[in-house]
Each structure stands twice: as structure tokens, then as C-alpha cells.
């Protein structure tokens, strides 16, 4: 990879735009957090101080630095500080099970774990066997000097995010300067979006979710401000509140949010919204039609992209008054590749057939972290020598060249935008249940919300202990909402467990809630 050593040129490096904005508009608000606003000048000073702190603790280029996703200014200063050292940030949710976080720290080789308030949790993680990381308090005082990042090269790491893995162990997705540069260039240089310093962005995502990178780095690159969500519980309510009080003009959200807000559409009026963007889950045409009335002046887009291809890379501009796509199964199309990226179906023999969506281009990362087997399963090389990534998403292309999302080819589902491998849940359930058969599935509840079910083939009721066990290993959104004990799983004609029959039988037995 000869262009690994290519330096990002000034004006296109991921931090240089932020630094330029800090010089040009030091008094412009950058972040609204901790019940106050911080200016570009203040943020720059804090980042500078963070960078110095990390260097004093021996953090060098390529090192992985863990950071608790506490919602405050120091966390954001830390992210930028880490990047300016040429190091790689690894966000950790302090509420995740300890065992899971320890696994990530060990796998990523994290040397230092930054925290602001959650000192006890940081210490708990750093003294556990298998980790050699040091907790480091990140409440710094601003440096008067300007942020001065090290030379950034295309092969340098930016961040490493861990997502649900089928084997029970989270999978690390590293994103490099080259990938993130390509994304920022595409968003900011190619003229599609006119984001400017008067915009106010919503930042609704956990920092462990790469959509957060759009929500904080794009505004900081154009002199705009952003509003992070103060708490993640009842996110849909918090979002509705901030969209209005913050007069948000650019909002990237997961479709679940508008699904939760459906019954209140008549009360929501957001005239200041300029861009209402969606990503992370299937977006339903009907729900979007209702939402569109809440944002009368906004451009509405459906965006698509896995973490492995840096944030998103396909877009579809949804028009008011357009009818439901006849082939889309109620879902808004995911559209066409953005500049610099290519999308194609695996096995392109039949243009009308379904196929697995594959992506090529500078936003696609090089492979999974420390996991050559998963990498060789998902990443390949095309006939023309270009690398590509297999998304696992089933798709079709319509006559206008728009991609349509049709579902997964495996057992991965999205819960509120979070990637969940059902096999990961099954793995941990099996550990507790011994050699019993387990099946995790999703159920679509009233209102169109997905929730996870877990079936266990057992004579005894193992629910109580099992739930406690799962909570020790899986984040909240992966805990099954219902655990159902079945004495014998139905088999299909091949003698294998019939997943469909099992779920259908359960659905039939569900009590109908009186209207």
C-alpha cells in the first residue's frame, strides 16, 4: 500500500479545517454541553491541553487510547486531542458489562483510558488481569497555544470501534486517516451540502457509533455548532426537545427516533431544519411522509453505509409527494453511491435479481482489527484489483440506478440503529444453559418496534439466572425483551430446528392487547 505514507494535504487533513475555523471564528459557539456553550477558541485550547497531556503520558502515533463516552466538553476535547497526536481513539461505554470492556481493552491494546467523572469504573477496568492500561483524568485547563497536530498520513489510525460479533467477541473496525479524509472531502468539498457556520447540528449518537463522527466532526469543520444529547435514556424524547429548543438546522438521526415520535407528529414543528438526514436502519416511507410535515423546509435524505465504509456512502434524496417505491417493501431506497465510492451486487449476472451489496472506494477500511479470518470472509479483491467490502445486506437496483435495501443475508439485526448479531446473544445464552439449544430472533411489535426474543429448549425455566448472566456480558440493547422456554423445538423436514415455525408458534400464542 504505497499511499500509506502520503501526507494529507493542508485543507484536507481531518483536523486542519477545525484549526482553521478556530483561527477565523474563535468566538463562534462550537459545542452546547454542560449547560453552556463553548467557543471554538475554548475548545481549541482544551484540545491543545489534551494533546500535551497525552504526549506527557508517552502516547505516540498509532497508540490506541480508550475514552469513556461521558457527555461533557472534556470528552470531545479528548477525541480531537487524541487525533492530533496521531493516535487512535477507542470509545468505551462505561455502563457496558465490565467483561466486555476488558475484552475490548485487551484486544485493542489500549494503553491509557481517559475519564472525567467515572473514576471508579476506569480503575476497575485498568486493574483487571489482561489489561495493562492506565486510567487518566481528562479534566484539563485550556492551553493558550493553538492546536498543533503531528503530520497526519493516510495510513494513520483515527478510531477503532467495536461492534457485535457472531462469535461472542466484539469485532473491531479500524478507520484510517485515508478513510475519514475521503468522507470529509466528499461531504464538504463536492458541493452537495451547504453546511455553514450558522448551522446547529444535533449529535444524538453514542461515541461508540460512527454516525457520531458526522455529527461532531462535520460541524467543527465548517465553523458550525453541535448539541450532544445530555442522556441516552428516552433518547427519542431528548431529541424532540433539543430539535426545538436548539433550533437545530442539521439533524442526522436513526429512523427509530421518528418511529417513537409518530403519535406526536401533529405537535412537532421545526421550521429551522434545513437537513433532516437518516441512517442506520431501514427507513419507512409511511413514517417519513408523516415526519416530512414536521420539517417543512428541510431537505430529507436517506443515507446508507456500514461502519466498515466510514459512516455512510450511499444517499437518496427523498422528495415530498413521491409515491411508495413499488419494489421497496415499504422502505425508502438507499440510493446511489456518493462521490468517490462504488456500489455493486456480488455476482452481477442478472441485473434484476437480488444480490449482496458490496462497496469499493477510499472510505472502505482495510480489514477488521486483529481478525484475519473475519477479514477474509468480508473483504475481497475485484478483477480490476480494487478492494471491496461485503456488507451482508441484500439489495436490488431499480431502473434509475437506485439501490433498494431488502434485508440481511445473515442473522444481524438493527435495534435502534445498533448492530446486533443474534448469534452473539445465542453464544452467551449457550454458555449459561449448557448444551441446550437456543435461538434468538426479533419480533416486530405494535408500532413497528423491533425487540429481541430468546427461545430456549429446556424443561426447566432458566429465565432468571439467564437474564442476569446476559446482563454481565451484553450491552442493554442486546438483552432479550422476552425469554421463552420451550420443551422441544420444532424441526423441519431436514431434521434441523425450524426457526420460522418456532417464531410463528410463539406469535400465535401471544395475547392480543385490547385496543
Amino acid at each position, binding site marked *: 500500500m504505497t499511499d500509506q505514507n502520503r501526507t494529507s494535504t493542508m485543507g484536507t487533513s481531518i483536523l486542519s479545517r477545525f484549526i482553521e475555523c478556530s483561527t477565523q471564528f474563535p468566538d463562534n459557539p462550537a459545542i452546547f454541553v454542560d449547560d453552556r456553550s463553548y467557543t471554538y477558541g475554548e475548545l481549541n485550547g482544551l484540545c491543545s491541553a489534551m494533546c500535551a497531556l497525552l504526549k506527557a503520558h508517552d502516547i505516540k502515533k498509532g497508540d490506541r487510547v480508550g475514552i469513556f463516552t461521558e457527555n461533557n466538553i472534556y470528552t470531545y476535547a479528548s477525541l480531537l486531542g487524541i487525533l492530533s497526536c496521531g493516535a487512535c481513539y477507542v470509545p468505551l461505554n462505561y455502563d457496558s458489562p465490565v467483561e466486555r470492556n476488558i475484552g475490548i481493552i485487551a484486544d485493542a491494546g489500549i494503553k491509557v483510558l481517559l475519564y472525567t467523572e467515572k473514576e471508579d469504573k476506569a480503575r476497575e477496568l485498568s486493574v483487571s488481569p489482561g489489561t495493562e492500561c492506565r486510567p487518566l483524568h481528562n479534566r484539563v485547563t485550556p492551553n493558550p497555544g493553538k492546536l498543533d497536530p503531528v503530520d497526519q498520513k493516510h495510513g494513520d489510525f483515527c478510531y477503532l470501534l467495536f461492534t457485535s460479533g457472531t462469535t461472542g467477541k466484539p469485532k473491531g473496525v479500524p478507520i484510517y486517516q485515508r478513510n475519514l479524509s475521503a468522507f470529509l472531502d466528499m461531504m464538504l468539498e463536492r458541493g452537495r451540502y451547504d453546511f455553514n457556520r450558522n448551522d446547529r447540528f444535533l449529535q444524538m449518537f453514542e461515541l461508540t457509533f460512527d454516525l457520531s463522527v458526522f455529527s461532531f466532526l462535520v460541524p467543527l469543520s465548517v465553523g458550525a455548532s453541535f448539541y450532544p444529547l445530555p442522556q441516552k*435514556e428516552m433518547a*427519542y*424524547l431528548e431529541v424532540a426537545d433539543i430539535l426545538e429548543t436548539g433550533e437545530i438546522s442539521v439533524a442526522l438521526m436513526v429512523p*427509530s427516533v421518528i418511529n417513537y415520535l409518530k403519535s*406526536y407528529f401533529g405537535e*412537532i414543528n421545526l421550521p429551522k431544519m434545513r437537513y433532516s438526514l437518516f441512517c442506520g436502519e431501514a427507513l419507512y416511507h409511511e413514517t417519513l411522509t408523516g415526519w416530512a410535515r414536521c420539517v417543512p423546509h428541510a431537505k430529507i435524505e436517506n443515507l446508507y453505509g456500514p461502519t466498515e465504509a466510514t459512516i455512510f456512502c450511499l444517499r437518496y434524496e427523498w422528495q415530498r409527494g413521491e409515491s411508495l417505491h413499488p419494489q421497496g417493501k415499504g422502505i425508502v431506497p438507499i440510493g446511489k453511491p456518493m462521490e468517490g465510492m462504488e456500489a455493486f451486487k456480488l455476482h452481477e449476472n442478472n441485473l434484476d435479481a437480488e444480490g449482496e451489496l458490496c462497496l469499493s472506494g477510499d472510505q472502505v477500511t482495510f480489514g477488521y482489527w486483529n481478525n484475519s479470518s473475519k477479514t477474509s470472509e468480508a473483504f475481497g479483491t475485484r478483477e480490476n484489483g480494487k478492494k471491496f467490502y461485503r456488507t451482508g445486506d441484500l439489495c436490488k437496483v431499480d431502473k434509475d440506478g437506485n439501490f433498494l435495501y431488502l434485508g440481511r443475508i445473515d442473522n444481524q439485526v438493527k435495534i435502534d440503529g445498533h448492530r446486533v448479531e443474534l448469534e452473539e446473544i445465542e453464544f452467551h445464552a449457550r454458555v449459561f444453559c449448557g448444551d441446550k439449544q437456543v435461538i434468538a430472533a426479533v419480533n416486530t411489535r405494535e408500532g413497528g418496534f423491533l425487540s429481541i426474543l430468546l427461545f430456549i429448549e429446556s424443561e426447566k425455566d432458566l429465565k432468571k439466572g439467564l437474564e442476569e448472566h446476559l446482563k454481565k456480558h451484553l450491552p442493554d*440493547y442486546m438483552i432479550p425483551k422476552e425469554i421463552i422456554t420451550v420443551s422441544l423445538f420444532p424441526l423441519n423436514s431436514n431434521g434441523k430446528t425450524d426457526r420460522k415455525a418456532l417464531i410463528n408458534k410463539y406469535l400465535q400464542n401471544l395475547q392480543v392487547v385490547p385496543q
Partner: protein
Amino acid sequence: MKKEEITGKLKSVFQKVFEENDITISRETTAQDIDMWDSLRHIQLISEVERAFGIKFKLREVLRMKNVGDLIDLIDAKQGVPA
């Protein structure tokens, strides 16, 4: 309906939504205090409360609810019955 009655009826709504017979609620109870009280449960809870008491909440009202006490007061106000 008196506030005590509201609280009693509300408790059974909670028991139904959270599928927990030994759930306890007080005026100070918040989402942090009850396990697995996430957005989905919240929507289900609001829906069940509306159904059980024959009322409808506005988004503003749902946004302002910080604890179960706020919920009780709101149900009370909507019933038009003095506490």
C-alpha cells in the same frame, strides 16, 4: 379518582408493562430506578396509561415528566378531579 387510587391503578399498569409482579413505585421513581426502562418500555407505558385512564398526553407533557410523581399529578389534572 383520588391520588392514592391513581397510584394504585398506575402500579398495576407498571406491573403489566414491565411484566414484574413485585414492582414498586413511589413519587420519586425515575427511569433510572427500574431495570430495562428504555424508550420502548416508555412508549408502551405511556400508551397503557392513556388506555387505562382514558386520557391522552401531549408531547410537551411527556417531555416534562421527570418522575412518577409528575405522571401521577398529570393523570390527576387530566381527570379534572381535585387531589
